[in-house]
């Protein structure tokens, strides 16, 4: 395989994603795991850029790092009283998690085996068009309008539900 600057950066991102992913699942301190997850999500966003999915990459960062991860950390900080917050793993969880991980591994290996050929589309001179416009067209003019609306209603229901649960008179 020809070595280019691009492939170097790509493998850098891949390495970053995998290493920080391993740290997420091995480290015992839950806050460390959360910050490591931030690096993983960043790495995945970088890989999206290499797939020419720039809109998806920015969405990944804004939703997962700026939103979900912040809420996770918020929850941890609000509930823990000590700096060291450790995860306890029982044997049953280990067995269940191992099984699911094995199944996922099998699935991924099957997909990898079935992929006909590995190629970098950009290196072959193809330039993909910006994705933002296509995503917008597909959602608003095309076949994904109904799922999009359903998801937005679902989010609204979740929002109202959260507001309702957090009200004092309902909690008591």
């Amino acid at each position, binding site marked *: 395989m020809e070595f*280019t*600057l*691009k492939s170097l*950066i790509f493998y850098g991102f891949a390495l970053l994603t995998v290493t920080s992913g391993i740290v997420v699942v091995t480290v015992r301190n839950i*806050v*460390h795991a959360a*910050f490591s997850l*931030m690096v993983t999500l960043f790495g995945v966003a970088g890989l999206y*850029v290499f797939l*020419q999915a*720039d*809109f998806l990459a*920015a*969405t990944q*960062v*804004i939703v997962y*790092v*700026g*939103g979900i*991860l*912040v*809420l996770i*950390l*918020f929850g941890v*900080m*609000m509930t823990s009283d000590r*700096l060291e917050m450790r995860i306890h793993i029982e044997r049953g969880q280990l067995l269940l998690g191992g099984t699911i991980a094995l199944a996922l591994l099998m699935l991924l290996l099957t997909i990898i085996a079935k992929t006909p050929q590995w190629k970098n589309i*950009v*290196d072959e*001179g193809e*330039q*993909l*068009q*910006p*994705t*933002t416009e296509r995503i917008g067209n597909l959602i608003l003019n095309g076949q994904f309008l109904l799922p999009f609306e359903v998801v937005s209603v679902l989010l609204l229901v979740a929002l109202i539900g959260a507001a309702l649960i957090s009200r004092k008179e309902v909690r008591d």
Partner: protein
Amino acid sequence: MPDILSQGFFVQDAAPRNWAEQFVRDVLMPMLPESMAAHFSVELGMVLVMLGCAGIFVAVVPLLPLVLVLAERKVAARFQNRTGPMRVGPWGLLQTLADGVKLLFKEDYIPPQGDKLLFLLAPYVIFTCSFAVFAAIPFGQNILVSNFNIGIFYIMAISSVIVMGVIMAGWSSNSKWSLLGSLRSAAQIVSYEIPLGLSILTVVMLVESLSMEAIVANQAGGISDWLIFRTPFTFFAFFIFFISSIAEVNRTPFDLPEAESEIVAGFHTEYSGMRFALFFIAEYANMFAVSAIAVTLFLGGWEGILPDLAVFGGGFDILGGLPGFVIKTMGLVFLMMWLRWTLPRLRVDQLMNLCWKYFIPIAFFNILGTGIWGLIFPEDTPLSTGISIAIISIGLVQAYVFVGRRLGQKSQPQPSSA
């Protein structure tokens, strides 16, 4: 040679400008002796040019906070009828430099009970994210690091990571003040990101592009074409954007995360020396960045006030509108300082009320209004601009009268009920 440098990391708009490749081909290559030129590829040249630009960028942008810190102190002094720093250099111009040197030599204290790794990492997360934002800001014609197709969305994404650094700093310090400060900051930034994003959306709806270049190009042709005056809704969106930006960068009246009278210095209480300076620099860089974004989105970017003139006429063409851009941005920065030294700090409940009960509904209304406006006036004509400016003027007069009446009522002595 379709490599990453020629296309940029992100997908470019229809015609990639590729100034780096042009520069290497036209300027750099002819300068080299023939024996060297044979071994010198355009790609390598572009790597060097990019690294050079990044170097200049990283060296110049931190100078901005240096200027801004001094400006803030001088402005504050004026507001309080003082002179401000006067000792170091003429009119105290070198004061910030002296402070910087002082901070360099200070002890680098790391709380022994804290989380050392995260404590050391946190300033860099904030610093990096603050400066990564500058990569997408068009400072002038052809003066921008990269013309992303998703420019403004990239800026929002990167600046939403800053809050992770704040949480990191607050948590790893293992101090009550720091934790409280970072929790306040997280709640504030996450809340105010919503009206911020929604007011950006009104601009994106009118321009039909996320690219910063396209947004500026859409406002070419003088002050009447600036997006702030294009519709009455963008006019309100600008104010929501600007006020939410002040909340995002944690400045008074929204500086609850670092409220001195309540929680010492907020999330960076435990930091000292150069690490504290990094937070400080990042704060002022953020302030400049949000002002620059506001200028790009609503106030015409580097386009001039008069039609068909770069800034003040032909003479400044060479700078590609940079002087005008800096003047406009500094105007907004001054406005932020003005607000800081005029208004008292909000309470937490007032802060949240303002965001969730006023800004977010108004921002949604703005989006709806912009959509309807776009249906009525599909093309931007002098008529639509005239109607828009008329509506804005009437609205402003109404608001002035309304506020005046309210203030008049307040100032009258209230009959005591007791």
